[in-house]
């Protein structure tokens, strides 16, 4: 019951012999791709982050003034730091090459360590080269989490849908629908909790349309998703112009959800703010990740869900109502994304504007794939995107020679790299995207 989802052709149990099993498409080929990529990135690190690094000290603040105890800032000479890290990177790449010659694939920890070190080298380089070579590491990380909140909810929605065999391109629409509904309902009731609930309902409604069309009417799931995004954008935009703008006080001034600090714990440096200084939605995010993970892999519900997503016929023959399972799971996914959408209007900001989700649903989709359809993987992938986003924001603050437009591309470039370079041909649940037609 591992996180990797591997199955041969959709719906066909392999009538293969044991140890000579036919080639499953999921197994990662021991190719040259990983070692070569790692080496290339190692060299890039050596040249840019090492040899061409400015001889300036980059300093990283770890504690904030609110913290319980203060830790000294971390100061690294950019040149030396870059050099050391890039040599380490090349070492890892060399090990991957060595493993390749032995016909073994690079282990997961190697790639992860490589990414972490590469990011560290990049950070030192970019901070070291800035006009003000000081950043708050704590702030960087806390901000990454904040920016990741809607992404996490969105990708959890994706996990819930795809695990049950329905591709969810409509995450963007679910987020937007949630944001809009949260704003309007919370404004009208003057109660953010009702707004939060309404956001979940709105997300669920968007999802129900997806479910209805893809499950009952067998319309291609990607098409429904794409069209739903347009539909939600149109409806919310229309109502924003006609209803909200006409009477902002009544319809677009939701009371926000406050930050709930857990005393003492929230003052732990770095960890405190991200774990114990969050809004209700932030805490819900952690809970949702855990609940979805436990639910999927430890409960009866999860077993059935995954069976439906992997091999619907098998589930059907065991008396599981495939389409009903799909319908309700997709609906649940929508509700989760809806809650994520409420983050925009109840936590981050206190009003709705057109397109407030700003394409984050698509990044969530990428996070889901990068996280390999696993709630925890998706969580960390979303964090990575949040990190890239926040990093570019901080880097433009401290001033860097890289034009701001290029820094703004960073999250998207990271996504391309992640999807093209690291994820490659990994496969989602076998039956994902395929409507189940009984008989």
């Amino acid at each position, binding site marked *: 019951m591992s996180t990797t989802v591997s199955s041969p052709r959709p*719906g066909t149990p392999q009538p293969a012999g044991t140890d000579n099993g036919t080639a499953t498409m999921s197994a990662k080929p021991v190719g040259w791709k990983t070692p070569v990529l790692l080496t290339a990135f190692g060299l890039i690190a050596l040249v840019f982050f090492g040899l061409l690094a400015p001889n300036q000290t980059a300093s990283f603040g770890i504690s904030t003034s609110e913290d319980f105890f203060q830790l000294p800032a971390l100061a690294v000479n950019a040149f030396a730091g870059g050099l050391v890290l890039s040599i380490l990177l090349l070492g890892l790449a060399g090990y991957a090459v060595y493993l390749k010659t032995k016909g073994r694939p690079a282990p997961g920890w190697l790639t992860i360590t490589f990414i972490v070190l590469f990011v560290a080298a990049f950070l030192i380089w970019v901070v070291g080269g800035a006009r003000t070579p000081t950043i708050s590491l704590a702030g960087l990380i806390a901000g990454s989490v904040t920016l990741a909140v809607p992404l996490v909810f969105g990708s959890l929605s994706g996990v819930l849908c795809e695990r049950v065999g329905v591709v969810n391109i409509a995450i963007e629409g679910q987020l937007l629908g949630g944001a809009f509904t949260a704003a309007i309902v919370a404004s009208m009731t003057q109660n953010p909790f009702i707004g939060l609930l309404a956001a979940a309902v709105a997300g669920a409604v968007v999802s129900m*349309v997806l479910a209805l069309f893809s499950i009952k009417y*067998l319309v291609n799931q990607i098409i429904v998703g*794409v*069209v739903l995004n347009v539909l939600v954008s149109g409806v919310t935009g229309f109502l924003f112009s006609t*209803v909200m703008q006409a009477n902002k006080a009544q319809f677009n001034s939701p009371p926000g959800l406050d930050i709930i600090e857990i005393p003492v714990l929230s003052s732990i440096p770095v960890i405190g703010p991200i774990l114990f200084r969050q809004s209700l939605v932030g805490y819900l995010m952690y809970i949702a990740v855990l609940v979805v993970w436990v639910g999927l892999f430890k409960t009866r519900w999860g077993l059935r869900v995954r069976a439906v997503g992997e091999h619907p*016929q098998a589930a059907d023959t065991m008396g599981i109502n495939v389409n009903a399972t799909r319908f309700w799971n997709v609906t649940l996914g929508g509700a989760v994304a809806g809650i994520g959408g409420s983050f925009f209007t109840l936590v981050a900001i206190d009003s709705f504007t057109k397109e407030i989700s700003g394409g984050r649903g698509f990044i969530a989709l990428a996070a889901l794939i990068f996280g390999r359809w696993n709630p925890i993987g998706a969580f960390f992938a979303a964090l990575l995107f949040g990190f890239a986003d926040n990093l570019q924001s901080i880097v433009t603050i401290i001033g860097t020679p890289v034009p701001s437009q290029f820094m703004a591309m960073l999250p998207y470039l990271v996504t391309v790299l992640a999807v093209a370079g690291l994820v490659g041909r990994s496969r989602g649940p076998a039956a994902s995207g395929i409507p189940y037609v009984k008989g």
Partner: protein
Amino acid sequence: MSENHPKHAAGEHGRPDHKDPHHPSPAEEETAAVVSVDTAGGAMEPSAVPATAQSGQLPGGPDTLLRRIFTGSGMVSVLAVLLALIIGGLLIASTDKQVATTATYFFARPTDFLSAVWTAATRSYIALFQGSVFNPRGNSVAAQFAPFMETLTIATPLITAGLGVALAFRAGLFNIGAQGQIIVAGILAAWVGFALNLPLGLHLLLVLVAGIIGGALWGGLVGVLKARTGAHEVILTIMFNYIALYFLRYLLNTPAFQRPGESNPISPILDATAVYPQIFGSQYRLHLGFILAIGATVLVWWLLNRSTLGFEFRAVGANPKAAQTAGINVSRSTILVMAIAGGLAGMSGVAQVAGTEKVLTDGVAATYGFDAITVALLGRSTPWGTFAAGLLFGAFRAGAVQMQIQTGTPIDIVLVVQSLIVLFIAAPPLVRAVFGLNPRRKKPARAAKSRQAATTGGAA
């Protein structure tokens, strides 16, 4: 031997219980044709509907919008549009002040409310029509037909970008990246248009070529990444849209792309030699790009139906494994089809910078890249279907301007109507059900029986 092989031998050979997703599997393929015909007639037998018989399945196969209109489901298409318009109308009415006012005394005088609803919706749609097809209030024949010319103008980039999306669909690829492809095409075309000084004809040709190459590069790059790494093109194209936009913004902040002496992010106006001539003179915006869009439609039709490349694309789209086994290079096809799709979207970029806008701004792509997706979907990924859908959506966009001016209805309503149309057309049974065209089927008897079954089963 032949008498032992009846035409419709009970078809259960193969894998009766194996539901292959892409093939009609109930009781085997042999029955699929029969079944699909049967379902099209309305008798939905859920367990026997092959996926391919459902309209949403891509790639679209040979049933075009035109053919659908002239077959039984043509009615469904019309009804789908009607239903979308009704829902849009209700949305308009729901926010209308007069409707709200009359609703407060609904029980006292319901006719006021109903007529207000009717007025609110029809007023908007009449304006929409006048803004897109024919304006009887125009003071000359030319002015009366001006809305239609405007429709054609706005349809131009929709058609070419829609063709790009449709072509990719046919090869089994979801090209969400027309937006980025238009942008990159716009960048190259505009630069050639304002930075170079070339003679008439050659200049425009070069602008066109530069734009097509730009789009093709941006699309082809996605194809290369997909073919080499297996990354999903949906994610790649979406990311490439953002990257292209930020790149454009960067360029527009450099002096090379700004007007001399200004620092606004807007390029110089393209040279007169670099812009599309207006077909009917300066009174209409309609430009040569529309003729080229017709040409592109013909070309794509030929490509798909009469060329070896199109054969490969369609084969890869319909069954990549079989295509590969037949010696078709799937990677090459992927790259090529994305490049051609990008080139088509690139034509939209050219239509923008050399046709209507004549400058490059960061809004060069407008929302054409995304609208193109719905256009291609509505056109069922066939060239002429896309052409027709482009005209329809062009009419919506053109009319929306007039609708907003006359009635104050926000343009967003067009998005609602457009997406509803695509949804409804993809689900004919829903439309038939809404209009009560589905033959009623008896169900209650079964429910009673199954309850009994459950109890019996439990006892046994």
